[in-house]
């Protein structure tokens, strides 16, 4: 039996579709209800639906053997897991964004609002830029508009939310996509099962 942690929401749905295509289907997951665990004994898989930021926690601590999670979460929390495949799903970028005509006055400490304090800190450290991090949990775009911060570091998919708020992406920090991760100890004790899942997923991706 392989325990798979999936992020709730759109990425999770795409990830499940890929897994089902690879032969690891579990139809009960598509039913509209409030269940969090779904099992298919015949295929020897069990799925958990968890908050996207928690997928890496479940996998790192071995509550799930494998999981699917955005690279943004891996960069932010740096969990001790194997990062086996780039699934190419949920592609987007982590950007610095702000007013289009934003001028970075290096005399001042730059105020950065973000959900990703570690990624932001590392990025500006590389640039030797002093910053102050303002950790927010949502509606990050509001921060520069209300003068709470100078810029934001956030995920940009189409740029539409930014545009509607008169903001623009200023710098790209890194490209993001979903990864197939595995608990390090599960990988050893369930090497055959996880290896097979990894290989099948890879083949499914190649077929497109």
């Amino acid at each position, binding site marked *: 039996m392989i325990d798979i942690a999936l992020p709730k929401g759109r990425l999770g749905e795409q990830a499940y579709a890929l897994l089902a295509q690879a032969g690891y289907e579990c139809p009960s997951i598509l039913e509209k209800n409030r269940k969090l665990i779904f099992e298919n004994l015949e295929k020897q898989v069990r799925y958990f639906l968890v908050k996207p930021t928690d997928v890496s926690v479940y996998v790192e601590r071995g509550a799930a053997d494998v999981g699917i999670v955005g690279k943004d979460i891996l960069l932010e929390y740096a969990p001790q897991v194997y990062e086996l495949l780039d699934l190419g799903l949920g592609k987007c970028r982590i950007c610095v964004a702000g007013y289009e005509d934003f001028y970075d006055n290096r005399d001042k400490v730059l105020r950065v609002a973000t959900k990703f304090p570690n990624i932001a800190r590392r990025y500006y450290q590389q640039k030797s830029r002093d910053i102050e991090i303002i950790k927010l949990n949502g509606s990050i775009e509001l921060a520069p508009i209300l003068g709470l911060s100078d810029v934001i570091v956030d995920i940009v998919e189409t740029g539409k939310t930014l545009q509607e708020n008169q903001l623009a992406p200023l710098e790209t920090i890194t490209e993001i996509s979903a990864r197939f991760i595995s608990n390090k*100890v599960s990988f*050893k004790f369930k*090497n055959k099962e996880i290896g097979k899942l990894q290989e099948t997923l890879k083949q499914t991706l190649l077929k497109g």
Partner: protein
Amino acid sequence: MFEEKLNALYEQFGYQKFRMSHFEEYDLYAQNRPFLGGGHLITFSDIDGSLKALKPDITISIIKNNDGKSEKVYYNENVYREVNGSYQEMLQVGVESVGNPDIYAQAEVIALALQSLKVFSPEYILDISDIGFLGFVLEEMELSSSVQEEIFRCFSQKNMPEIDLFVKKGILKASDREILKRLMEIYGPLEEGIAQVEALPLKQKARKELENLKMLAKVLTAFGTEAGICLDFSLVNSMDYYNGVIFQGFLKGVPYPVLSGGRYDNLPKRMGKPATGAIGFAITMELITQYLEQRKFFDADIRMRYEDSCDFARMTELVTTLRAGGKQVRCEHVGTESSMRCLKQIVYRNGMRAEEVMQ
């Protein structure tokens, strides 16, 4: 129980018990922060004003005390470390072989590591890697040290997609990428793994280091341990300290490595003992308690409650018989309130017999 079995095992191989005080000079640890894996120490100033720290590690003290002679020791000591933002006291059991560990001495320590895992559970795996080998492979690909470091990190994550980025950027040759990919994919019994590595187009230094690993594998087979050992280059440890074979032990049901060790000649070198080599390992006993030991559901088997009219002498005889039969029995007046959870609750009646209680 486990500790006694482990101690007996190490003594069978002629290892001596190492004992030490609870603290050392703070400087000793401050100079070797990365070896300890970072984290805060519990420090205090001694009567004479010098700064001391509660020991976060035993290995450093063993190396400090080594006088250049060959030394084979084991220890069971509490260490104090920062874990997830708070200090924890943890029992560590470990083995160190200091002096000039040749192939035999290395194989002996690895065999002891495997035997130690067997003490805990029949479902165990010992993974082995050679950090020196991987270092030479990357060095002979003529990569800058920062790129080497990044690739080491990718290995620890079995992260091929990220290594591919180096090819895209023109930093890594496609032929070298192929070698790295093959190395990363290896996961299996040691000798099979070595055969797979041998088939790769490696250069001189890497090949020479591989010969060492091969000789080691041969001795391990003689120890009868080869079957439980897997080659896995995703084990990575700081090259500032480790320089050769490194290994980690896993038990089914424990999501973290319970045992970890390796050859660490660079620690004595950094401590001013360049002629001394060392190999050893440590077991985090906390993980065993946390994940493997049976969960307890009750504080005691029986809670025997008595009233004022109770014949204490006869009740004592009864509970003594029960205890002799292996039961845990707590006696209490009926009026006592207690948050204790017992499998069985009984009110004592004069003349009660053990069979009645056990029904």
